[in-house]
């Protein structure tokens, strides 16, 4: 990229990565990908090996979010093994962990999250350490290790006091969900509503689905079915808008559960039937089963 001074420099590289970062926060992943491809092309032509590696990790991160992470694994592992730079190592390990979280292999996710955290510890950059603790928390939560996950999220938040950002909002959301599972609902509500408020402030549309889903679940757990329905509907609409399949499934399940618990069997059947028809067409028993058995204690919305 040519800067306004007409020179090709490292600032342009960082600017492209920053633009990509903002596009990701806003949920515009294809646009972000375009910025990262430009940054990578620049790095290959003018940059250092470290810049090439960082841009490659960024590209992998986007591919992971777009559900195409498998193709980036070899590159990430190669960077992790080759690079002697802890910052690059951390980035590669972090994104490997993220990939395995997305494909729900939480043990592998945990393995790489620990490497990322160890590298971040060496580097001592609070922001990187915080995101590593959050990633470790996600892997632990996927493994149903709720208390351990909570501690990682708490550590992440301690490293970002007062700061308001999309990343912090996501950590607040994760800890909020844990608090609801730990039956500390008041704390859970406070954390989830703060997360939602911050994500709205930053217009991070894609990520707002998460607190809406978790709030729906929290309201279900505390018997506020009307509010659960409201949060569930918001989650469903946003998940459909942003094409997040797992969130659509979770929203339909939670909406069905909310209707069922409030005694509206017909509406519950409609949601469960849609869940069966669109996502589990072979499992014809699903609507009847979900109407009869409350599976809230079996389901992990973050797994």
């Amino acid at each position, binding site marked *: 990229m040519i800067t306004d001074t007409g020179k090709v420099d490292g600032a342009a590289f960082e600017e492209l990565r920053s633009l990509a970062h903002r596009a990701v926060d806003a949920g515009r992943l294809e646009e972000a990908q375009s910025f990262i491809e430009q940054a990578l092309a620049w790095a290959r032509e003018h940059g250092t090996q470290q810049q090439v590696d960082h841009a490659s990790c960024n590209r992998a991160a986007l591919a992971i979010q777009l559900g195409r992470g498998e193709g980036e694994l070899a590159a990430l592992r190669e960077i992790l093994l080759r690079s002697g730079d802890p910052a690059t190592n951390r980035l590669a390990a972090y994104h490997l962990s993220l990939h395995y979280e997305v494909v729900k292999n939480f*043990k592998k996710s945990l393995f790489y999250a620990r490497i990322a955290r160890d590298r971040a510890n060496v580097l001592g950059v609070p922001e990187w350490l915080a995101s590593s603790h959050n990633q470790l928390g996600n892997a632990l939560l996927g493994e149903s290790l709720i208390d351990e996950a909570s501690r990682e999220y708490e550590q992440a938040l301690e490293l970002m006091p007062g700061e308001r950002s999309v990343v912090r909002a996501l950590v607040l959301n994760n800890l909020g969900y844990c608090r609801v599972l730990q039956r500390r609902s008041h704390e859970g509500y406070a954390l989830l509503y703060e997360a939602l408020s911050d994500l709205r402030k930053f217009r991070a549309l894609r990520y707002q689905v998460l607190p809406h889903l978790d709030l729906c679940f929290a309201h279900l757990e505390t018997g506020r079915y009307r509010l659960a329905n409201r949060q569930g509907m918001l989650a469903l609409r946003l998940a459909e808008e942003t094409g997040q399949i797992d969130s659509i499934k979770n929203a339909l399940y939670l909406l069905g559960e909310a209707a069922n618990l409030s005694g509206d069997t017909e509406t519950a059947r409609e949601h469960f039937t849609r869940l069966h028809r669109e996502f589990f067409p072979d499992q014809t028993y699903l609507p009847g*089963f979900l109407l009869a058995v409350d599976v*809230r*204690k079996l389901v992990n919305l973050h797994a």
Partner: protein
Amino acid sequence: MSTASKVRQIQLVGQKIRQLRKEHKLTQVELSHRLGIQQSDLSRMEQGEYRVSLDTLFRILAEFKVGIGEFFEDVAKESITPRDVQLVQKFKDLPDHAQREVEDFIAFKQAQGRRESPDTDD
């Protein structure tokens, strides 16, 4: 549903998975392989300590090709669903004579059901 009954329910689901696995003569390793999960996760699930995604939950249900009613018969027996609560509430709201009529009708339907399903061993 009370917290205690919910906890009981998740334990029962775990026990039911273990029972069906054994009836199908599958080891934890074999079943976990079929489900695409780790053996240690299946073990925790059988002990009622592991929450899973909807995908995994429904994969488990699909794995045992028995009627879902049979699968969760024990769970359903121990569970009071919202519909059950609603029915009881409606029943209690009826006057005494109407409640007796409902009881008579239930007795009639039960007798009818027994007549329609004779013991096949005879």
